[in-house]
């Protein structure tokens, strides 16, 4: 089934029957119909690994899952926390206790001294139920991102931007001498020397994620 045609990965369309649930296991991007067939839910790249069939969508919005590491923009400072835009259909909330480690006397301190409107933060999804999303910044890697540029990519293509065990992102970091942080919600934060080139490369990956030989093309592009 994983045949190669014209250098483009095999594309599945919604409603395409991919196999029987007796032979394979349905992974993400698929569902099992009444007859026991595994059917694609998305227009996306078909991947069969082991006996798992999955379809990686080529477009779509970000749906938060607990544990995701994301990049967000603070849109509002409230009394006991912050409202954060996380590039998904819903706004997220970062509460004071999850956002700041130290004791805060609310009578004396204004919260915008920690995070103000427009600040970019790297955080974790704590819970996501029925459109109510709570964030947390407990942990060493979660912090406010100062300076830099934000780039949007398709959320489902984030694994491609990172590459196998970070191979792709490390390559870009090294060649362009930049610091890059990728949120699973499709926002990428870049800061450093050749920011333009890094942005161009990441946009290229977003456009060409369905083509074979992407790593070679990106290596070539970066060494120019």
């Amino acid at each position: 089934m994983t045949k190669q045609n014209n250098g483009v990965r095999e594309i599945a369309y919604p409603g395409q029957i991919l196999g029987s649930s007796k032979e394979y296991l349905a992974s993400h991007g698929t569902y099992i119909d009444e007859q026991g067939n595994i059917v694609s839910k998305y227009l996306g790249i078909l991947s069969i690994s082991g006996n798992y069939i999955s379809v990686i969508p080529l477009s779509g919005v970000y749906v938060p899952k607990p544990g995701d590491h994301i990049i967000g923009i603070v849109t509002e400072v409230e009394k006991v926390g912050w409202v954060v835009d996380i590039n998904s259909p819903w706004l997220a909330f970062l509460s004071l206790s999850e956002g700041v480690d130290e004791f805060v006397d609310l009578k004396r301190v204004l919260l915008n001294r920690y995070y103000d409107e427009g600040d970019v933060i790297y955080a974790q999804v704590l819970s996501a139920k029925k459109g109510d999303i709570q964030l947390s910044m407990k942990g060493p890697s979660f912090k406010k991102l100062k300076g830099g540029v934000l780039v949007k990519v398709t959320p489902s293509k984030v694994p491609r931007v990172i590459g196998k065990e970070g191979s792709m992102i490390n390559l870009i970091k090294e060649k362009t001498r930049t610091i890059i942080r990728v949120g699973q919600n499709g926002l990428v934060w870049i800061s450093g020397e050749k920011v333009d080139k890094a942005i161009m490369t990441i946009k290229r990956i977003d456009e060409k994620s369905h083509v074979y030989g992407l790593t070679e093309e990106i290596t070539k592009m970066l060494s120019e």
Partner: protein
Amino acid sequence: MGKIKGIELLKNGKRLDGRMPLEMREIEMKVGVIPNANGSAMVRFGKTIAVAAVYGPRLLLPKHLQENDRAVVQCRYNMAPFSTDERVKPGPTRREIEISKVIRQAVEPVLFLENYPKTTIDIFIEILQADGSTRVTSINATSLALADAGVPMKDLVVALSGGKINGTLILDLNGLEDNNSEADMPVAFTANKKEITLLQMDGELTKEEIKKLLKEIFTAGEKIYQMQIKALKDRYSE
């Protein structure tokens, strides 16, 4: 019936535009025509052109319209003022509101809406040229635009119109046939399961004729389905 200004709609077994009774017009489909939309598609059936754009899922406001356990589908079908011979007054008419509703109902059953509570999926359809069968053209365009937007779907929706002139069953009516036929029946169905999501009829058909016409529509629909698949794959073949 079957005659306008002395012109016969069906002559020697051929229709006005030279088609056979069960022949469809030239069909063209293109996905990803509007860069700003999450998903978009253009579908042309002969001289009828429909462009559909899908935005979302995105947060639905005002809040009282939100559903706590699923996304809401909002659909607007709009005819461009220049789409017909006589200028169409801008603004939703009774007909346009009705078609918006039936299009929404034709595509809603194939969507997995429960993944996106409190949100809306907005569908905007513009008819740039109208020459009969605009609602089925719109449904085909909507189906493609939804797939392009990355909205989870059970299946694609295929739509086609059928009708009757002088007792002969025909497929894919154009504007003249639409206005002067004995019956006209737009049908939309899910491509794999053949579950009907839209069935309307104007005029008169017997039980047998409906059965026969539905059969013909399902057969011809397979061709439209293959074209939809091709259009979707072409978006990413480079």
